[in-house]
């Protein structure tokens, strides 16, 4: 039995039913443990004070915002190559989750930036590329919503996702070029993984695991909903013909 057989909608519904509550429960455990550990049982940073603790929301959300797009890209490729409907629906299901993670990352970044940098928003390369990523998500979701025929919508959004990925990467490096050209040496971005000490690192890992599990759980749930919605549509079409 190859892994592709799990793409059968009926099998997919079968194995996700028991997996779904477990992934939600594990995500909740990881997030509760990680956030409580991070917020109450780690010391304040000597320069950033207690504001450093927003890292436990900001970094995992930003990580998953990018990973959600990568997952959509992979699912789109699978749809284009092997035409598994579940894959197209999973890509569709991941987009709203990804856009919310992007918003969380932008919002928590602004909240942290106000006391630290003295501004909610700066046209820093990282911030700007996240804003552009947000726009890409917006276009992708809008295209899904605009097309009525589900197969056409899946095809067109897959192509958009692939072309968009290339241009998203291009924008990322174009933005770096643009801002270095404007003010050199005023780099605001931190290499957080490099700098962060072990006290902050372990709860952060737990939080990242929590966000990954939360993403998996949400995408599975939304994919199941999409499959059910499509079944209902098929039943209605059959009833209309009968």
């Amino acid at each position: 039995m190859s892994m592709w057989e799990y793409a059968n909608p009926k099998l997919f519904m079968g194995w996700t039913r028991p997996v779904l509550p477990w992934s939600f429960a594990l995500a909740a455990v990881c997030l509760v443990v990680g956030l409580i550990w991070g917020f109450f049982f780690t010391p304040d940073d000597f320069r950033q004070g207690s504001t450093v603790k927003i890292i436990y929301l900001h970094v995992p959300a930003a990580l998953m915002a990018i990973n959600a797009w990568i997952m959509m890209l992979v699912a789109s490729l699978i749809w284009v190559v092997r035409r598994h409907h579940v894959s197209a629906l999973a890509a569709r299901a991941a987009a709203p989750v990804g856009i919310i993670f992007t918003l969380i990352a932008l919002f928590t970044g602004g909240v942290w930036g106000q006391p630290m940098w003295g501004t909610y928003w700066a046209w820093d390369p990282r911030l700007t590329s996240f804003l552009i990523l947000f726009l890409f998500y917006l276009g992708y979701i809008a295209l899904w919503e605009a097309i009525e025929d589900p197969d056409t919508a899946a095809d067109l959004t897959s192509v958009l996702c692939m072309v968009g990925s290339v241009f998203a990467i291009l924008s990322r490096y174009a933005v770096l070029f643009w801002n270095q050209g404007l003010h050199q040496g005023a780099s605001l971005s931190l290499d957080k993984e490099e700098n962060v000490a072990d006290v902050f690192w372990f709860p952060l890992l737990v939080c990242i695991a929590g966000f990954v599990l939360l993403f998996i759980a949400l995408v599975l749930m939304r994919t199941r909903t999409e499959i059910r919605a499509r079944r209902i549509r098929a039943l209605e079409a059959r009833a209309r013909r009968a």
Partner: protein
Amino acid sequence: MIALLLRDLRLAVRAGGGFGLGLAFFLIVVVLVPFGVGPETAVLSRIAPGILWVASLLAALLSLDRIFALDYEDGSLALLATSPLPLEGAAMIKALAHWITTGLPLTLAAPALGFLLSLAPEAYAYLLISLLIGTPALSMIGTFGAALTVGLRRGGLLLSLLVLPLYVPTLIFGAEAVRRGADGLDPNGALMLMAGITAGSFALLPFATAAVLRINLR
């Protein structure tokens, strides 16, 4: 291919083709900016490269939905798809025709509008070159967007939402090249990267455009 190019050009130039609308829009946007930000020449000459690039980008966007919409409605797009000419080639020719009717006039008109915004004298040559290199990419990316939304009844707004994020790298490199030219820095890096985007778009996007057209014509 040449016949298709000439046909598209003729259709665009004739009455009702919308030729010159983009140019007029470009002029109006550039005229409106000083009313918005005030008439100080120092401010205007500082923002002129960006304004000229954003305005030409919006003007190019304006005429995108005409690339395929009319051909789709009267069925000539389906004929094109079944003709011996590969659809990829047709897509590239469509982009080229769009560039000749909007990008090229915009490029030629931009220096004149640079005077209105008191662009720095050193920057004119770079404005011309950057628009000449960059606007073909705008046309090709826009053709892809137009192909995505061709089957939709109200695709215009969606088209801008899809295409504008794709325009970000071109805009950054284009405006940056002019700005560096105005500041007396070396703009060659930005120009070369933009030329790379244009060449890459024309090499790859016709395939994506043709694939999308085939899906829409199914």
